[in-house]
């Protein structure tokens, strides 16, 4: 009997866990990619002070507006000006 003749149910039974494993792997890779992207975006938000502004809004219970941003800038101006940039 040729091996092809045996395929049928036997192959299906063997392939199902394999497919599951592949799907699980793909999901894991996708999840880690999404996680990495989220971290990357979080890094950008922190570097570009968007997170700091959000924290300020939360702390001061304010909505984002030109006035709120002006207060935020005033609050952070000293720290920003004193922060050295490296060579």
């Amino acid at each position, binding site marked *: 009997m040729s091996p092809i003749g045996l395929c049928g149910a036997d192959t299906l039974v063997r392939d199902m866990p394999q497919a599951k494993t592949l799907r699980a792997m793909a999901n894991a890779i996708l999840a880690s990619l999404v996680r990495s992207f989220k971290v990357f975006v979080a890094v950008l938000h922190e*570097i570009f002070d968007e997170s700091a502004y959000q924290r300020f809004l939360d702390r001061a219970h304010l909505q984002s507006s030109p006035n709120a941003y002006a207060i935020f800038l005033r609050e952070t101006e000293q720290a920003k*000006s004193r922060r050295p*940039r490296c060579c």
Partner: protein
Amino acid sequence: MPKVLRVLLWIAVSLLGAFALATIALHRGEQINALWLVVAAVSTYAVGYRFYSSFISAKVLALDPLRATPAERLDNGRDFVPTNKWVVFGHHFAAIAGPGPLVGPVLAAQFGYLPGTLWIIAGAVLGGCVQDFVILLFSVRRDGKSLTEMAKSEIGRVGGVVAYVAVLSIIVILLGATALIVVNALKSSPWGTFTIAMTMPIAVLMGVYLRRIRPGKVLETSVLGFVLVLAAIVVGQWVSETPSWAAIFTLTAPTLAILIIIYGFAASALPVWLLLAPRDYLSTFVKLGTISLLAVGIVALRPSLHMPPLTRFADGSGPVFAGTIFPFAFITIACGAVSGFHSLISSGTTPKLIRREPEARFVGYGGMIAESMVAIMAMIAASVLQPGVYFAVNSPAGIVGQAPEAAAATISSWGFQVTAAQMATLAHAVGEQTLFNRTGGAPAFAVGMAQIFSNTLGGQAVMALWYHFAIMFEALFILTILDAGTRVGRFMLQDALGHIWKPLGRTSWYPSILFTSAVVVAAWGNFLWQGIKDPLGGINSLWPLFGICNQLLATVALCVATVIIVKMGRVRYVAVTLIPLCWLVAVTFTASWHKILNPNPRVGFLAHARQLAAAGANPRLIFNDRLDAAVTAVLVVMVAMILIESSLECMRVVSGSKSAETKEAPFVMTKLAAQEQS
């Protein structure tokens, strides 16, 4: 992963690194591929991070995951914020990466690619990364105290004063040297000058947009600014090709210097939100993007290095800057291997964001590895150039001659073939009138980067665009440092003057702002002016001076770290900071001695002053040399004082005549560990 596999993996990484290092060190006579440098660096960094930083964490610093950091204890949502380690890493890297690791290796390439590459790799793993890591951790354990505060509390009053003077000096000299790089890159370049001029209204536009139209949307504004800058680069080509416009933007070095000095003063006195902050965001955006792009370009193109591993200029007769390979290769590379300036960042914003103590290793040691990798890329960008081209761009007219034919003949006589026609073709390809005598490192780096980029993307047709993109990237970087540095210098001066007369210390009092801004701008403006008037090209004097200051600051940081390690009762591990400290002392003191007293007028400031005096030169030039010698001497004496003070403090602790008490904040158990478990 099973332990056996892990061991095998690390053995493989170590062997690969050793093989790559042997290849770059022993290969002679043939060009090697740039990827060998990348493999050698990455493997060494991986082994250094995995084993050496782990040893320091466990044995020397005893990082404690249960100890609450100031970010947790003092969390105020403003300065102190417990932050994800990747976010802190990005923030820290963005702060430490400046033009130094790009310019230093390009200048040091005059010795060949080998000495610089070896120093970048070894210096980072054993010195720079260690310094950044330990200072970060010590600052974390002292509620985020600055280097000067730690020097004062752990070593003594002298330590604090020396650290303060070193920081102020390095800022002033750094600003003068980097401003000179911009002047040299933009002189007689209407395209480059137009592009950089346009970044100022773009930054102001960004500031207004950010404040009035889309408050807080910094990323969006930065993307908008970046698109406008790209448009300015494209329009710049048209400007350079239109005679009436080109005439307006074709400026001489003195005119550019005056404009930059005026700009520095205005930027220091203007509100932060209008120019400084948006320019900073734009520069960071371009910086991170360009560095990533360069890394991709090098890996994709895998260029060959045309520079030999060692050149004849190891003997000190180099045209780019004078001085023997020891100590000047180590002074010149500065930020790519060990940078004292990093200790200011490691004891500034970063320690206030670290969530758990063990994360200091990743941020401090890992951040410097990333910085060092940038230096390796700069070394590659310089070494992919034909050596003749490299020396033609980087040699001052005072050494090789003013006329293109004369310069080409001089450089060819050194064994690095180049012709005036070849340089004219290259200048035409990058949209410049000439590339001769473009000292400072930035234009050479831009040509190398343009070659890598254009071979990866767009071909020769867009080489001019890539060149001006690279020039814009470097100049933007440097002007941001001018803005920020002048302000930081101004605040430091106001702090000091406030002790003499209180109103001068008030940071919001306009007469004080104007006066102190003028003093700081005059200080670095003097160095800039000196640089453009120097017949040897300026960089010959200023970059080594900056390198000496930077490494002296690293000496101060390592003194502080060594004293703290001794006080922690870990004398047996003191070599971790003591060996890099001894090396830096040897390098900086030797370099200072050469710069002050070497009888060769191209090396020694005083010998050069004597030569100028004998030739009846302008007294101003003679004064400049004497001033440089005096600045170097004062810094060396001050660092010698801190060394003596540190040694005495260590001896007192080791002999038992003083109790080993550090000024750490008291232990508080972290709540984050429990939160993470639940």
